[in-house]
């Protein structure tokens, strides 16, 4: 069931920082257009009496009190790190200062 919506897989892949082989692009193009086609089906439904929501579950205000707990500890949390600097910072490929948010 393929819909009418076309999708630019290369652009989506770029935004997601994914490198795709040509055959992967073709496959994903088909898959994603099929998903969009399914959503087009939903658009045919009459929703004029339904209040918009940001979530499918009818729950609101699920939160916790501001109580700090004890973190698991540095050693266990750094076990999966690809590399460390001074045994305490996670080593990553160089990021230029000012990139990202910090």
């Amino acid at each position, binding site marked *: 069931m393929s819909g009418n919506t076309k999708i630019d897989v290369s652009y989506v892949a770029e*935004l997601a920082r994914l490198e795709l082989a040509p055959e992967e692009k073709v496959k994903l193009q088909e898959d994603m257009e099929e998903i969009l086609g399914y959503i087009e089906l939903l658009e045919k439904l009459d929703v004029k009496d339904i209040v918009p929501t940001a979530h499918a579950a009818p729950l609101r205000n699920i939160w*916790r009190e*501001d109580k*700090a707990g004890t973190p698991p500890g540095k050693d266990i949390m750094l076990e999966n790190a690809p590399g460390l*600097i001074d045994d305490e910072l996670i080593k990553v490929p160089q*990021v*230029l200062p*000012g990139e990202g948010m910090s």
Partner: protein
Amino acid sequence: MSKYEAVIGLEVHVQVKTGSKMFCSCPNSYGEGPNTMVCPVCMGYPGVMPVANKEAIRRTIIAGLMCSCEIPKYSKFDRKSYFYPDMPKNYQISQYDLPFCLKGKIHISGKGFSGNELPNKDIGITRIHLEEDVAKSTHFPGASGIDFNRAGVPLMEIVSEPEMKSADEAYAYLTSLKQIMQYAGISDCDMEKGQMRCDVNISIMPCGADTFGTKVELKNLNSFRAVHRSIEYEISRQEDAVENGIKICQETRGWNDDQGETYLMRSKENAHDYRYFPEPDLMPIEFTNEDIEKFGKEIPELPEAKRERFVAKFGLTPYDAHVLTLEKSYADYFEEGIKHTNTPKLLANWIISELLRELAASNTSINECGISPKNLGAMIELINNDTISGKIAKTVFSEMFTSGKAPEEIVEEKGLVQVTDESAIESFVEQAIRENQTQVEQYKSGNNPKVLQFFVGQVMKLSKGKANPQTVVKLLQKNLGSI
């Protein structure tokens, strides 16, 4: 007068002071060993579930109300795509179209940083939303190191309208904003600790034009002064460029504080497509009118209201009130002190001219100050009831500052009680007259006030500063006049 006017908007990030992080229970504390205050949630492990911190939301709403924002009844969190190692789950939980606070304003007035008078105006706030802070990166040759202690700390983003026209206005806006956050205990806003961070959007256009020029974003601004300097620099850079026919490009520029100039960091990126979508792991937030009313009752007194009250109720000058409300801790000190003295104006003078100077000289905060507000109030009462003179009070004050002792104790120990007994002062007066006959002749020839002042000095010296000055003047006039 420049042919151009600047259009400036600020995006300010403020960390919310809470016990725990935004979406996990790791402590929100600064200065701990790297990667000790972390868990799978704030490190962005796959499959973890965030749970919102109610207190961070409450404080954000209080911040919004203090900036006269509207609080929408319905809000939600969204995911914002993000590809840097300081937030490895590749999205940041933020708020997109339904933030907690909308359409506020902050009032600015008075003297600007450069000494010029500011226009008396409101700077609009577009929105305040709540998000999670990212980890801290440290840059080494060939690699970067990440500390996740900061990741997940609740972070408000306060977006202004592009309504500022000068570096002074931006500086005043930041100062007011910081004051409000500190007053409400929402954040300490310590820029050195990264608790407050500021990006500037700036463009220029010919005076009177209604279309903005191309905007440039300034980053890496580590102090209010850097914000001020970078805006002044950028306005003149853009003016020069336009005058010389160079097109301003949409770009991000950094600020080099040592060189005093901005530099190109990156030109316009591939479309800012953050691909926001509702965070499925968090439920929307909904408030009733009663909830919002209840938040309204929790708002502390705003700095501006406090200034007006200090002037009206305690007879302070607008300047005194301004200085005493610069920091909430000053205002709290003053308000505690006035419980112990009947002359608020005198207390204000001592805080402003002596206490703040001593604190600055010794690099101490008012909260760590050796002189408690109660003791300073008590010292002022000792002046008021003539136990000590204003001059002796300075000695007592210094001693209080270093030892933290009560003024009565110091006065007692050092025998600093003012001499008000007329017969004791009279003997000093007689001695001074006896020993300074030349000046007596001068006084007799012209009743010169300078000569009288000389005698007051002599008597004070003989009494070791303890004679009551009013009594000294009275007795000198009597004795000299009768010679």
